[in-house]
């Protein structure tokens, strides 16, 4: 088709159509459907029935909602702070060279290879209060019965720890890569000016990593929606509802209590929050200006 001799060898827009339509069908279209479903009553079997704003009204009467929102926000913020505090110095350290660091790095990244399911199940074994590591460590840190998961207060911190164990390697990797990109001349100049190690870190390394700090932070914030797998397997939201974060609340309402309509309301909330956060990613990190970033390099 088309004027072949003058096409200039450029592909027509048809080339992008299959990918766009496939993506639209399974990712964009569901966003519209979930909004529709939030106005229906549906148990997961049969057809959804229009029910007006009944599900949305349930938001005000759901006794679990405020706890789930609070837990989600808390888990997100605590994980973000903790993981950043661990990842930034570690990444900078591992950017240096030497055999010891290379060896450490090789081990550090192993959790990256594991699925959330594998990690949660491994930790369930470690935290077994009878025979796991928890039975040995517990008494040392003041948890006499070693039952970390069974305690409503501690269970939350267990989740924070396991999530950090899973996601720290990825962000260390980001910081390591970014630190290695910092031009060595900056450090040379600083040394000539008599700047010490700490001064070099605060005046060169940190500002140079600004971009990565933002990228990593937003990925952590957005990624906190995926902590769902860990929580489901490790605590199931318990004990009681002590770790029932919002994505898990949605899953349990939909696929355990079979109230797909109300679960869709919660999904819409997640969608709005998640999308808003991610739009910040593309804005702040310049993903949408990919071309200009690469030019001149």
């Amino acid at each position: 088709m088309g004027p072949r001799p003058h096409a200039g060898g450029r592909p027509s827009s048809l080339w992008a159509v299959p990918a766009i339509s496939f993506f639209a069908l399974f990712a964009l279209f569901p966003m519209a459907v979930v909004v529709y479903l939030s106005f229906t009553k549906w148990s997961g079997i049969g057809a959804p029935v229009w029910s007006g704003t009944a599900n949305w009204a349930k938001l005000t009467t759901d006794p679990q909602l405020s706890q789930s929102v609070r837990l989600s926000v808390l888990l997100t913020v605590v994980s973000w702070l903790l993981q950043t505090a661990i990842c930034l110095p570690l990444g900078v350290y591992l950017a240096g060279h030497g055999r010891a660091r290379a060896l450490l790095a090789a081990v550090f990244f192993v959790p990256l290879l594991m699925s959330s399911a594998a990690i949660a199940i491994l930790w369930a074994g470690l935290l077994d209060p009878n025979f796991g590591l928890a039975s040995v460590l517990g008494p040392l840190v003041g948890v006499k019965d070693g039952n970390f998961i069974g305690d409503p207060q501690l269970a939350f911190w267990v989740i924070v720890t396991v999530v950090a164990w899973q996601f720290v390697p990825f962000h260390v990797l980001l910081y390591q890569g970014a630190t290695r990109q910092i031009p060595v001349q900056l450090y040379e100049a600083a040394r000539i000016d008599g700047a010490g190690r700490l001064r070099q870190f605060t005046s060169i390394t940190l500002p140079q990593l600004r971009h990565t700090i933002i990228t990593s932070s937003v990925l952590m914030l957005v990624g906190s929606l995926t902590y769902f797998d860990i929580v489901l397997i490790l605590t199931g939201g318990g004990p009681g509802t002590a770790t029932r974060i919002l994505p898990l609340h949605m899953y349990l309402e939909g696929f355990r209590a079979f109230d797909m309509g109300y679960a869709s309301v919660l999904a819409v909330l997640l969608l709005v929050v998640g999308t808003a956060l991610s739009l910040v990613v593309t804005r702040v990190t310049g993903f949408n200006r990919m071309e200009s970033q690469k030019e001149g390099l």
Partner: protein
Amino acid sequence: MSTTITRPPASGHGPGSARRGRPGRLARGRFNLVGGLSATVWFVIVSVPLYFLVTTSLRTSSQYLLAGPLSIPKNLSFANYRLVADSNFGVYFWNTLLVTVGCVAIVLVLALPAAYAMVRSQSKFVRRSFSLVLAGLAIPAQATIIPVYLMITKLHLYDTLIAIILPTAAFAIPLAVLVLTSSLRDVPNELYEAMSIDGASPFRTFLTLAVPLSRGGITTVGIFTAMGAWNGFLFPLVLTQSSSRRVLTLGLWTFQSQFGVNVPAICAAVTLSLLPLLILYLVGRRQLLAGLTAGFGR
């Protein structure tokens, strides 16, 4: 500057060509107490669970109950691995493999031509669709599982491997397009022009120029798509049911309830599921890690 492996060696014969890998050596090469200490602490935090995983998998149940969780196992037992192998592990493994291969194939077949069009085409539609795909990075899969479940049941695909493959692949497309466009942009414009002067069709240019020169990007996309599919949990959880369609992540969860207090057997299952990726990691660590931070490493 990008750290993705797609970047061909740039200009670097000048005097200041100590550019990659080496920078920062002066500042960080020396002994660094704070860094070294925190690295050691994290090393312990990472390696103790891994040590527990492997050694426990090699204990018999009774040894596990008697010896401490961190003791060095006396006589190694592979009985747990036999038990896992006899408990449908092969089926789960095979299903996971099919899902992974299916996802990678779909993503590459769809994303490569799209990325090619987005780099080379001047049409407005293509430019808009690029922004659309980028915005797609923002969509949390969690929030779409209910409608995806509805669609899959309407398509009569519920409890099939295809049900897992379709949405998993769809959600991998944005990042794939992002990585592939940036790798295709590194192909010098002169080469495209030379091809078109020779009268090559877009299709030929694509096959003989674009695809071979973006091998790095293709590898990267292959790696993170495969990892995502191999480790995926949510879509299999919601879209399948029977044990003959179960993938490894769900299989591990089944083992956890099936084996109950037999933690050594559970550890053996987790170790086995990790093994293929671990082997890949040992063979091509650099490439694997680069693939994982695809698009974000900058």
